[in-house]
């Protein structure tokens, strides 16, 4: 909506939101390890950008999950590279300059090195912010902590503001490593937030047909993203349509 262009988007598992950003032509480059619509199939905007260069070609840098994870960890640790047993024998090796080999100085064994994934900005969604501005997460936290710590600035949306964290919180990001925290209930939609909302499986399925056609996608983006006031309105609109469809 801010008409940002020429972005490099990074995520292990880019899904609907990334498909939207690619579809509107905001991204020049995608760094990822799995780009699909989980449980449904393809991301059609992503595919059309790659297969037909529409709305413009997109440069891909692809990795394995293990490689991406090691890249986030290296960046969060202030190291220029991470080491793993990975990529060996895969054609992925020929498609990126950010994977190389490193030799163990003790055993002489050759291992795979991946370049640290230093980010300008990380955006994650979490469960709670406490009165000191610390953010609390639980459930499958993925690489969210590492993404936050790999970025120059991190923005977190949360389900709610609380006086003290729920006892289920297992991971805390201190306020002083975050640039901004905003309360945005259901901010993970169409994904879920453990303890707050369920995955909107119907939306993922619906996205398959919405995104399959350029015009339908454009109309949907106009109505649901560009012409709404805020994310709350967006959610209300999606909800209302889902009720009609259901």
């Amino acid at each position, binding site marked *: 909506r801010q008409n940002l262009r020429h972005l490099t988007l990074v995520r*292990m*598992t880019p899904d609907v939101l990334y498909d939207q950003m690619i579809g509107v032509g905001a991204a020049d480059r995608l760094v*990822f*390890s*799995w*780009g*699909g619509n*989980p*449980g449904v199939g*393809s*991301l059609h905007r*992503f*595919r059309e950008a*790659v*297969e037909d260069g529409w709305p413009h070609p997109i440069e891909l840098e*692809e*990795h*394995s*999950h*293990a490689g991406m*994870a*090691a890249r*986030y*960890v290296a960046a969060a640790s202030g190291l220029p590279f991470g080491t*793993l*047993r*990975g*990529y*060996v*024998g*895969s*054609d*992925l090796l020929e*498609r990126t300059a950010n994977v190389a080999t490193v030799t163990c100085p003790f055993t002489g*064994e*050759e291992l795979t090195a991946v370049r640290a994934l230093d980010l300008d900005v990380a955006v994650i969604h979490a469960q709670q912010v406490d009165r000191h501005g610390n953010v609390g997460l*639980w*459930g*499958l*936290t*993925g*690489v969210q*902590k*590492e993404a936050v710590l790999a970025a120059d600035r991190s923005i977190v949306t949360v389900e709610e503001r609380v006086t003290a964290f729920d006892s289920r919180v*297992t991971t805390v990001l201190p306020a002083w490593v975050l640039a901004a925290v905003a309360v945005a209930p259901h901010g993970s939609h169409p*994904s*879920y937030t*453990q303890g707050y909302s*369920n*995955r909107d*499986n119907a939306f*993922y399925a619906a996205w398959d047909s919405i995104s399959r056609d350029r015009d339908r996608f454009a109309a949907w983006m106009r109505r649901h993203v560009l012409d709404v006031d805020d994310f709350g309105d967006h959610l209300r609109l999606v909800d209302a349509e889902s009720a009609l469809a259901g």
Partner: protein
Amino acid sequence: MTATADDIMTVVAARALRDRAVCFVGIGLPSLAANLARRLHAPDIVLVYESGAIGAKPTRPPLSIGDGELAETADAVVSVPEIFAYWLQAGRIDVGFLSAAQIDRYANINTTVIGPYEDPKVRLPGAGGAPEIAASSREVIVVVRQSLRTFVDRLDFVTSVGHHTGHDSRARLGLRGRGPSAVITDLGVLRPDPVSRELVLTEIHPGVVVDEVSARTGWPLRVSATLTVTAAPTPAEVAALRELRGRQA
């Protein structure tokens, strides 16, 4: 209840998992088969999902590796970097369970592109966890529907290594796991030749003829001299599978 070809494939995949095995499972067919095994003969199978759930016991097959129920029912929940480093890479996974868009005679797998990489006919989702699951699990089982589109003479892209170019070439790459031990399809089961590591049809599902399997294989298929016929899914197996599918959200 008649078992469909897909049912048989899933049941045979489930049977391949012994109880208490530690299985790294992807979403889709592998997850369905692993959860079926858990309801049948392997109640104590340990399901590990790349999203960080160790010992997950979902009541319905998850649509996404990030499904919340995985965390709620898991013995342990860890970060994604940890699942790949401490659990998969360190050699703690008995069976890696994969699917494929293309597979070749050495059980190498493509999940990246159909057609040339720079100008693909079909852009697939990509590698995900597969390259390291294929490399580091003690053993790999592939579950995939068999057709000329999937069983190809030559992969358009090698995403994950099976038995590489055969013989001891996989070990020479330094991969620590033993690689694919079985490729389970809707027609039968293929296993690597002990020496050449080329896939050999060793088991055929009831009602399937060898010619059909060959016709759906993109290379001259080797057939075992001791080819056996898969035991038909029992009513209990089929019922459990249907029940599980019915729960899919």
